[in-house]
């Protein structure tokens, strides 16, 4: 009952907050929906129009994703695909998984050459928008009509362009402040500090006890943004940050500069592992689980990996980052949202079947992913969810109290702007620029 309530609360919060990419305007594509015409200005293949999963003959669909062997979502993909193969033996799914970073290159090259698989994993918002604008993605408006009761429309906000839906969301995640409670208890803290002053006092106590407060993978800049964006959001409020990320407001914002200075004070105070700048996220996460760091700010998809480590799991707790400026921000303002998405190529030989298959598959991946603790469900949960790990349930509780979300900055912005932004984040972490230089540089360089 409690979990159902949380799901309802979570969905409600999403409705409030997901203004994100829903308002973005893809140009030149996505016109056709509701009439069987292919989205993206690509007419539906008349030979395949009207096909459904149940009526289509033996066909093969190809899919690309990032659920590699070491990915925490791997099991949910395998289980979902096995269920689909059993339910629809007439459809053979050939799927390949690629490492996250190289996949970004691969899928862009494939879209560019119009040689995409029928179904492909993508990140929502600006990442998918480029593909939609290029007319390479099949509009899912028609297929969605059959899933409206199971997939709240608010969850499609980040993959909706010009009012048309182009993606099937899987799970949603936020940035969580994970803490090793054994280390916190060793310096007298039985809970994760709830206020910023207590939090800083805790970091000082950890440092005095020769415990590194934060682990952060400087080699992967998105890991730095998990910290920086949380600090900015809890200083300036989610609306201001959302407006900046979505281009509705300038980066030249003194409050943001002050927040960046606050973040740099954490770095300069020696709260971050100095070795972290040369480490990957996997290495930092392993260090956190080995007890090297007290805190690890990262996506809540990590709950699955933590839950799978029997020795570590009892030690870990999750909370949201404390409020820094109570005049502008409150608890419940979070970084995250549904970003992991499946989409259908407009060039697919069987786009309508692929669309239906994608919804069915997405629902199952979401279901198994939620059970595994890979994130919160974008779809309405069903079946017995009592096995969901306690950490994921804590995340659900945090989301249940959410009042606003800001999507990850590098997902919300277009590729060029996102990389300019990441370059400045790098410089902030390396203390090469201060808050004023950060906002002025971005205000000048963001195209």
């Amino acid at each position: 009952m409690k979990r159902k309530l949380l799901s309802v609360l979570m969905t409600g919060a999403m409705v409030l907050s997901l203004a994100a990419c829903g308002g973005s305007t893809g140009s030149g594509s996505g016109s056709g929906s509701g009439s069987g015409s292919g989205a993206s200005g690509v007419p539906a293949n008349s030979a395949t129009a009207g096909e459904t999963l149940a009526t289509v003959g033996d066909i093969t669909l190809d899919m690309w994703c990032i659920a590699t062997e070491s990915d925490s979502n791997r099991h949910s993909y395998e289980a979902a695909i096995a269920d689909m193969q059993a339910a629809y033996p007439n459809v053979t799914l050939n799927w390949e998984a690629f490492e996250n970073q190289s996949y970004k290159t691969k899928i862009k090259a494939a879209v560019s050459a119009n040689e995409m698989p029928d179904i492909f994993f993508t990140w929502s918002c600006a990442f998918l928008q480029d593909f939609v604008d290029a007319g390479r993605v099949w509009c899912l408006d028609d297929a969605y009509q059959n899933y409206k009761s199971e997939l709240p429309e608010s969850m499609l906000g980040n993959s909706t362009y010009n009012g048309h839906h182009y993606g099937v969301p899987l799970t949603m995640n936020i940035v969580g402040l994970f803490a090793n409670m054994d280390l916190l208890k060793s310096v007298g803290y039985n809970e994760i500090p709830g206020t910023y002053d207590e939090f800083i006092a805790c970091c000082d106590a950890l440092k005095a006890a020769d415990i590194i407060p934060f682990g952060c993978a400087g080699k992967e800049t998105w890991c730095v943004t998990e910290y920086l964006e949380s600090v900015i959001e809890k200083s300036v409020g989610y609306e201001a940050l959302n407006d900046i990320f979505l281009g509705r407001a300038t980066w030249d914002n003194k409050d943001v500069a002050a927040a960046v200075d606050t973040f740099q004070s954490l770095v300069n105070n020696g709260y971050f592992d100095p070795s972290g700048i040369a480490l990957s996220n996997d290495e930092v996460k392993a260090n956190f689980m080995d007890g090297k760091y007290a805190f690890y700010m990262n996506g809540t998809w990590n709950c699955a990996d933590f839950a799978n480590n029997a020795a570590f799991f009892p030690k870990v707790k999750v909370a949201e980052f404390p409020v820094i400026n109570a005049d502008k921000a409150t608890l419940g303002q979070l970084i995250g949202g549904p970003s992991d998405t499946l989409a259908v190529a407009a060039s697919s030989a069987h786009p309508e079947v692929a669309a239906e298959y994608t919804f069915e598959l997405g629902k199952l991946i979401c279901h198994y992913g939620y059970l595994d603790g890979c994130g919160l469900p974008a779809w309405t949960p069903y079946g017995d969810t009592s096995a969901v790990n306690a950490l994921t349930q804590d995340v659900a509780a945090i989301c249940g109290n959410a009042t606003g979300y800001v999507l990850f900055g590098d997902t919300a912005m277009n590729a060029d702007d996102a990389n300019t932004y990441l370059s400045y984040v790098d410089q902030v972490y390396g203390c090469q620029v201060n808050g004023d230089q950060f906002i002025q540089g971005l205000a000048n360089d963001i195209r």
Partner: protein
Amino acid sequence: MKKKDVINYINVFLFLLPALALFVGILIAPIMKSLYYSFFKWNGMGAMEFIGLKNYTELFTSKAIGFWKALGNACFLAALSVFIQLPISLGFALVLGRGIKGERPFLSIYFMPVLISTVVIGQLWLKIYNPDYGLLNSALWKLGLDSLAHTWLGDTKTALLAVFIPTLWQYVGYHMLLMYAGVKGVSPDIREAARIDGANESQVNRYIVIPVIKPILKVSVIFAVTGSLKSFDLIYVLTNGGPLHATEVPSTVMIEMLFQRNRYGMGSAIAVMMIILCFAFALLISWAFKERDIYGKK
């Protein structure tokens, strides 16, 4: 022109046609295509907008792109290759070429890194440089040199040098083999004659062997310099251009523009510049190695 000459020309053309088609299709056409794209603003997917030379202007003036810094890093790597890597290779080649005991096993051992995949070498050196459990820091701690232990790939001051060392380790055997072949080609009679004239081993190397293998040295220098200008794989694995762009080279900037920023026009402009630079350096090195008389004329 006589009919026979025309037939000969046609025959020559027909025989050359397959090779010419391959050359144009594989080498010239992609370069021309890159040159064409470099005049456009294009995200690789949508409509292309002709912007003339704006990509080149931005490339050389934008601090955000950092092409000059990347080029400077590549030139630094090239200098290290020429003045550190090649002398080491030459030293090995001269010693092994003398026919010492165990010549063949040494040759194989020095050449072995060339055969290993660059990604494997990158992973290997990532472990060596790891600040927590890496071989290098562990050795320093064991030797009581704790103050020297370092985040080698995470410090802007040491990262570029740390990236160069695996490159040196990987390719020293390659250049050694090229030079070794040259050293072995030097006639024993010339060596013998020099010794009879009273030259010791180092004088034989300096006045006989090295001048004889000069064409091979030229090839090695060209390979080392152009290889440094287009270096990518090891840097991508070890640092991906970081920290703070300290190890950025033109290839990593190009990849960022093409596949991370979706700026295919700018990426193509960088590709064109790299081609021009590689050709220019190759010509410069060839010119520098040309035989000259005492008046400096050829």
